[in-house]
């Protein structure tokens, strides 16, 4: 364990953790858009900037990927930090001028209007979708293409991604709702990444369960009976209930 000081509060944290995790545990508010527990820190949104002091020297670092050290002094709301953060939020608000989530965030941190040229993007290129796909799902169905102002999240060569299993983790983690899942009658569509995958339906009630490729992926990963994969959650519950009743009535 190491001791660090966050906003003049001394806290004891595990070694090899990052400042942001330590602060979150103490309910100290540091905004972060590209950070998510369980994923490697990325350091792209730069909202989690804090000031650190180490042997008398101060500097600004991103708290999501700065490892804690004994005696580290952290200040999350100095004048410089707040000013920098506000301009970054203002830049984001200009990029996503119509996005609800970004508007809410801006309001929370006191930015009401962006003075920069407004665009109507939704994606802030935080990379959560890309990283969850690679690090958690173990696929690399999407990635970044282009650089600088041309950077965007897309599938390889902007073609329907062969790797995508349609699990929707990307959409689930997206902080701005830029990736949307549409379940059609037969297909799951994720338009932002050019993905379209047929759905599998419950063998009992006919409700959609999950995309075909996701079922195949799970079958490979686990050794569960085939039947389970083709039954929806609701029918599984009912089946269990029926079996329980049957068992109890026998007695």
């Amino acid at each position, binding site marked *: 364990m190491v001791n660090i000081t966050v906003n003049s509060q001394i806290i004891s944290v595990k070694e090899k953790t990052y400042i942001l995790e330590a602060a979150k545990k103490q309910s100290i508010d540091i905004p972060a858009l590209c950070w998510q527990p369980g994923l490697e820190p990325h350091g792209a949104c*730069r909202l989690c900037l804090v000031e650190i002091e180490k042997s008398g020297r101060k500097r600004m670092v991103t708290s999501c990927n700065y490892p804690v050290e004994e005696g580290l002094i952290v200040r999350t709301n100095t004048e410089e930090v707040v000013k*920098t953060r506000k301009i*970054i939020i203002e*830049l984001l608000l200009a990029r996503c001028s119509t996005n609800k989530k970004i508007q809410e965030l801006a309001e929370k941190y006191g930015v009401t209007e962006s003075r920069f040229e407004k665009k109507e993007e939704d994606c802030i*290129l935080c990379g959560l979708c890309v990283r969850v796909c690679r690090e958690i799902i173990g696929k690399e169905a999407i990635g970044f293409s282009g650089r600088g102002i041309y950077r965007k999240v897309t599938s390889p060569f902007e073609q329907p991604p062969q790797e995508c299993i349609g699990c929707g983790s990307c959409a689930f983690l997206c902080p701005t709702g830029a990736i949307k899942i549409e379940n059609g009658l037969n297909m799951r569509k994720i338009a932002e990444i050019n993905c379209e995958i047929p759905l599998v339906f419950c063998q009992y009630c006919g409700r959609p369960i999950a995309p075909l490729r996701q079922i195949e992926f799970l079958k490979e990963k686990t050794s569960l009976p085939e039947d389970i994969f083709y039954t929806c959650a609701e029918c599984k519950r009912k089946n269990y209930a029926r079996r329980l009743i049957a068992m109890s009535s026998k007695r």
Partner: protein
Amino acid sequence: MKIKNSSELKNYYENLIIKTSKREKRTIVLSMGTCGIARGASDILNSIKKEVRKRKLHNRVEIRVTGCHGFCEVEPFLIIYPQGIFYCKLQPADVRQILMESIEKNNIIERLLYTDEKGKKIIKETDIPFYKKQMRLLLGSNRFIDPANIDDYIAQGGYQSLSYVLGNMQPEEVIEEIKKSGLRGRGGGGFPTGRKWELCRRAPEFPKYVICNADEGDPGAYMDRGLLEANPHSIIEGMIIGAYAIGSNYGYVYVRNEYPLAIHHLNIALQQARDYGFLGDDIMGKDFYFDIEMVKGGGAFVCGESTALIASIEGKPGEPRAKYIHTVEAGLYGKPTNINNVETWANVPLVIKNGWQRYSKIGTETSKGTKIFSLVGKIKNSGLIEVPMGITLKQIVFDIGGGIANSKRFKAIQTGGPSGGCLPEAHLDLPVDFDSLSEAGSMMGSGGMIVMDEDTCMVDVARYFVNFLKEESCGKCVPCREGLSAMFEILTRITEGNGKHEDMDLLEEISFAMKNGSLCALGTTASNPVFSTLKYFRDEYIAHIEKKRCPAGVCKNLVHYEIMSDACRGCGACLKICPVSAIQGEKKKPHSIDDTKCIRCGECFEVCKFSAVRRK
């Protein structure tokens, strides 16, 4: 043939020297770096070969093709040894005369000699003012070395530093030597090289890597290209010494793919170094293995940043990561990695050869040794220069560079590439070293120096660099990506005459956020061109915004052309050249420009013989 120990190297060296001293042939040295080739040196070489064949001079003359010597302005040029006659600005047709007069006879052709400002003809290369004021420790030997021939390098004393190090020094002593010399990283950061090596040596993990960063991408900068093309072995020798000191067995050279000649020469040099036993197993008889692999970059500017470079070598997209855990601890494949710039590596054999005492005498208190700059822009003598640290900008621009071309006035000097800043005339007395330049709001960078004259619009310059960076930023972090694109929009607005007074504050605010908040050095320094021009040339911004005027006459929307009727002779030259027929007038009577039709191309201004067209 392998050279197995220091006495073998010594013998080999002595034999080479004896062989050269016995040689009765004349040597024609032709500078054929990329710059020389661009100026037509290949044609000169072909004519020399043809003429030598025709005149059967094989036994009397030898041709040595070298890399760039530095004075790119007067290329293509050649030097005839042993006399050292320097002929410049050559045409293929001149070759015949050179062979007839200077090789077959012993005459000097006056017309091909370099003429200095006072009109004096100069015979020897070393007497030219451009070279005289320099201290050419690294570039000086370029003229003696054919980069495709390792013997030329050995004859210049090459690989003797390595031999000394492996024979007489412990790794720690090498590090100590470099630390004492005060050598600092030449890539731009200026981190003390010895300390970096020490940190990397101390890192517990294994294996360790050394990398040579040759991904030079600054507009107008070609120092590393010059070294790689002309003297690749000096870099290889430096890397072997570094690897021995650090305890590494694997080296990489990361070269940008846009340098085909450098890649070609480096490949040859690496193979020759392997053949001679300087790379591979048991180097110089010592139980030490080291080899170097070359990796070609894919053309991204950001890959010059150390962590992005590492990602690129690993086969990942070239994006930087946070350096809170430094690359000397966890770099390539997560292992300790020492990255140095081409020029830093090339300095290493020099430090060992001369000893730290002599090396540290050159330069200033905090910046030691010499630095290579590429002096380009509106200057009389463009080229690669090598000067001791601490020399003033004025000496560089006026004594070495010969002043501003076309008798214009000096306006600014941009140092440090896109991450550097523009310094005005008032700062010309500034000593050139790492710290002075940073304090003034610019930086040493890797060594680009772009000289600007009075016809340069500083707002336009800032916009140019911001445009370059917005395309070349990796786009990972918000302040850099969004900040640059916002800055570009604002600067475009100002140059188009739609700027508002608040725009200057906005630019400063974005600069602030980028400096504090960006992930890598590209982002934190990207605002320097804007910040420094705002600081030193604020009046130009104000003229653009308030008076809707571009003082340098560059920004098209803010420039107006008019014909002064008292000076106009009515020759009709402007009328004929105007692409949109905006000029009217009868012959021999003053003409006039219809401002609503004018597209500000400036053709009339250029074509008028009587200076009757005015730009304002």
